[in-house]
């Protein structure tokens, strides 16, 4: 009963091939450009020196940016958890009409570019906004926008696990005399800890690297490391200092990711035996009705108002309203490229980025799901790093590094590749839990019924993982549609994406330009919502993390 040497050899070759594709891709298109840029901060004048780090730490404004980055990320994470927790509960425990649409809708903000949302928030948080107080350029504006962007992460991740918690556990606690609050604190909350950790790490990651929100809403007083990297690079071309900041940012991000990955390793054992129970039901009684509709109302207002402002601005014609801006999207003014072309470009880029993200992401997910060990654990962390790397670092990294062996520095494929770097973590994080959940014994059942290994993968693993792949693909598509930062720092042929076209329109005076920008933003929003809605149809339970 000893496996033959030939079989082992074939397995080793297979494993090597499996590792090679994602490693090569990530190595060449992420780590190599990254190291090339960051190397400049360690070798400012060709010789090794840490002087740029001491520059960073000695400059007051940079020290402040580092401190603000940390504390606003912590505050944003905690606030998002608190604000989104009721909705997580409502989505987990109750069924109501339009639930899947609602769940898709709350995910739309997550992938909208800040350049679009920023304008809406400046209108909302001004003195004429619904709050009636001027929060513009305060830290509150930043925190509120961060909650807006990350609301869905908490609802989907925490709500996902919550839906799988046996409600009888809570009932048992109630019968033992615990009140609602104590039941939540002593039973639900500890059981939800893995999901809370997952959501927190993601929200922290996104807010730690916040750029557009801080730039647009923060005014002069607030700046994050990410903003400083951009400023040091584009305003001063001070690559040593920008690189030192990028290193510090990566260190912070890696620490969070490693801590989270350690935590996950530990919990994957204890969580295995939890029963999966479908518990959603209609709300009963006035109290539950109030909770459900109150929470949904708040969610709708909180997430919907900025989006409604956008749509409203796109419909403004002089003093009245109309569809003029939408009609004008198709025709070019004297010289401009018609904005509608950007829709086609974006769709093409997004399709390509999705294909790349799926191929690399699925292979990486297979690696992480099936080969447990130090290599795959580190690989999981490295895969997430692009989310924590500033767009300008990636863009300039391409420019510095990718001239050998073939000069790819200005290849059109770089744009979807940059998008896919951001999308791959989403594909991996959606696919891995599902792959891990395909029980070994399902495969064994297939084998006993006469299916050879490859057939087992095709007949059993693939159909089960396929839906997760579709979900990952939907996310990748939506992310690529909304990506702005990296795109704008890549030297690329003249094919503006939607966010770039919006930004160009916003850069010109004239009410029609502004209305067109808002109309194009609305188109982007609808395209995003459509791809997220499509995801909902294929979602298997709540396996993934997003």
């Amino acid at each position, binding site marked *: 009963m000893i496996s033959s040497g030939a079989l082992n050899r074939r397995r080793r*070759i297979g*494993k090597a*091939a*499996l590792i090679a594709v994602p490693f090569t891709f990530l190595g060449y298109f992420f780590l190599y450009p990254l190291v090339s840029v960051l190397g400049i901060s360690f070798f400012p004048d060709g010789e090794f020196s840490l002087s740029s780090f001491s520059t960073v730490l000695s400059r007051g*404004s940079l020290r402040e940016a580092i401190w603000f980055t940390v504390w606003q990320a912590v505050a944003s994470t905690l606030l998002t958890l608190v604000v989104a927790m009721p909705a997580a509960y409502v989505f987990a425990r109750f069924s109501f009409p339009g639930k899947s649409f609602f769940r898709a809708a709350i995910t739309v903000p997550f992938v909208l570019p800040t350049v679009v949302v*920023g*304008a809406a928030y*400046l*209108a909302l948080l*001004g003195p004429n906004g619904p709050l009636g107080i001027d929060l513009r350029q305060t830290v509150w504006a930043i925190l509120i926008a961060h909650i807006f962007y990350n609301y869905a992460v908490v609802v989907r991740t925490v709500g996902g696990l919550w839906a799988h918690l046996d409600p009888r556990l809570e009932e048992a606690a109630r019968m033992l005399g615990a009140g609602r609050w104590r039941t939540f604190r002593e039973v639900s909350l500890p059981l939800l800890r893995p999901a809370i950790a997952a959501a927190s790490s993601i929200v922290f990651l996104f807010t730690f690297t916040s750029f557009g929100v801080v*730039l*647009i809403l923060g*005014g*002069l007083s607030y700046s994050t490391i990410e*903003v400083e990297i951009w*400023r040091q690079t*584009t*305003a*001063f*071309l*001070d690559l040593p200092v920008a690189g030192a900041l990028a290193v510090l940012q990566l260190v912070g991000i890696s620490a969070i990711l490693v801590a989270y990955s350690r935590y996950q390793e530990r919990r994957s054992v204890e969580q295995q035996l939890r029963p999966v129970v479908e518990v959603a039901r209609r709300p009963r009684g006035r109290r539950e009705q109030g909770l459900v509709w109150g929470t949904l109302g708040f969610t709708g207002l909180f997430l919907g108002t900025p989006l409604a402002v956008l749509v409203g601005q796109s419909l403004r014609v002089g*003093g009245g309203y109309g569809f003029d801006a939408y009609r004008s999207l198709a025709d070019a003014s*004297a*010289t401009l490229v018609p904005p509608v072309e950007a829709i086609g*470009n974006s769709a093409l880029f997004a399709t*390509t980025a999705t294909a*790349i993200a799926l191929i690399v992401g699925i292979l990486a997910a297979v690696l992480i799901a099936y080969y447990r060990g130090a290599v795959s654990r580190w690989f999981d962390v490295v895969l997430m790093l692009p989310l924590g790397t500033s767009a300008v670092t990636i*863009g300039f990294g391409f*420019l510095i590094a990718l*001239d050998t062996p073939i*000069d790819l*520095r*200005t*290849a*059109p*494929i770089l*744009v979807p*590749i940059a998008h896919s770097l951001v999308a791959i973590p989403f594909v991996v994080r959606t696919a891995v839990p599902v792959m891990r959940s395909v029980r070994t014994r399902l495969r*064994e059942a297939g*084998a006993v019924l006469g299916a050879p*290994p*490859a057939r*087992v*993968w095709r007949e059993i693993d693939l159909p089960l993982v396929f839906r997760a792949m579709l979900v990952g693909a939907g996310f990748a598509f939506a992310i690529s549609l909304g990506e702005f930062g990296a795109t*704008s720092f*890549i*030297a*690329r*042929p*003249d*094919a503006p994406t939607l966010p770039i076209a919006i*930004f*160009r329109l916003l*850069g*010109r*005076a*004239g*009410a*029609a*330009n502004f209305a067109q920008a808002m109309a194009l933003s609305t188109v982007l929003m609808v395209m995003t919502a459509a791809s997220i809605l499509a995801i909902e149809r294929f979602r298997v339970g709540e396996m993934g993390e997003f």
Partner: protein
Amino acid sequence: MLNRRPERLIGPIAAVAVALVLTGCSPNAEPSTTSPPGTSATEPPVGIVLMTHDSFEVSDVLLESFKNESGIEIRLLRAGDAGAMVNQAVLTADNPVADVIFGVDNSFLSRALEAGVFEPYESPLLDAVPDELEVDPRVTPIDFGDVCVNWDKAHLAEAGLPPPATLLDLADSAYRGLLVVENPATSSPGLAFLYSTIARFGETGDYTWIDYWTDLRDNDVLVTSGWEEAYYSYFTAASDGDRPMVVSYASSPPFEVIYATEPLDEPPSAVMTDGCFRQIEFAGIVAGTEARSAAEQVVDFLLSTPFQDEIPLSMFVFPANENAALPSAFVEHAVVPEDPLTLPSGAIEENMRRWIEEWTEVMSG
């Protein structure tokens, strides 16, 4: 025993991945731009890579007719905003990605020149360009625009305020809380406005630019990170905001007329002609290009009247070529300040970082 590792799938997937990467899934039908630019000037069509910023606009018709006349195909390479583009040009100076660069302005010019990005060229069309726009033989001026304070006519009239006339007026308590400017650290017009105050008030003397900004700050000036927010979220003539004075462009009013949602006779805002800073945009031939003569033709094309005629409406700046025809809305509503402020490019490169830091210190104080 049970082989649950799906390695057999890897072969085909890897092949697809490699194919995707190599074929490059180009979103436009143009040939790949990865080949070394410009091979031979005699065999048409020669490809010339023109690196430019995201605000650059040119009509397909014009590019097509240029290609037909000269046998030169211009491939556009977008590289972010003007600052990002110059930095990319500097980073690739040793191994350039383009033959011609357009859109370097006087703020960033000396950085590009110091890095040796350009090689000299004197276009025969320079005769039609005013001398004050020509600052260095290595670059050719293509257009210019003025960053000026704009004000909302209706709003100021309603408040019973006369239009501001000079930079000093802006610090007057009568205009308290009415001005919005952009952060020079994150915005190009913001930086231009900072330069104009430095050019006007200087670094030494009784009343320096720092004193001026201290007064502006005390007069409740609002700073935004970019022009988009200042104009579309705070400026009363273009938004529901509460600031009737904004740092914008001298060409903004004609744009209000041309790009109105309902026909307008008069732009709702006007330009303060004092304290304007002149931005000049240059084109240059990238040092080391293998298609020098085609690159020269492209620079000439940028300075030729067909292209120069398009400039006002495509990029809302003024053409450098005096023979270019201005559209009627420009003639009617655009203002060209008589004595715009400027700073020597070298002084800018040398001091920019310090100025921005000092400005930040004043404003956060």
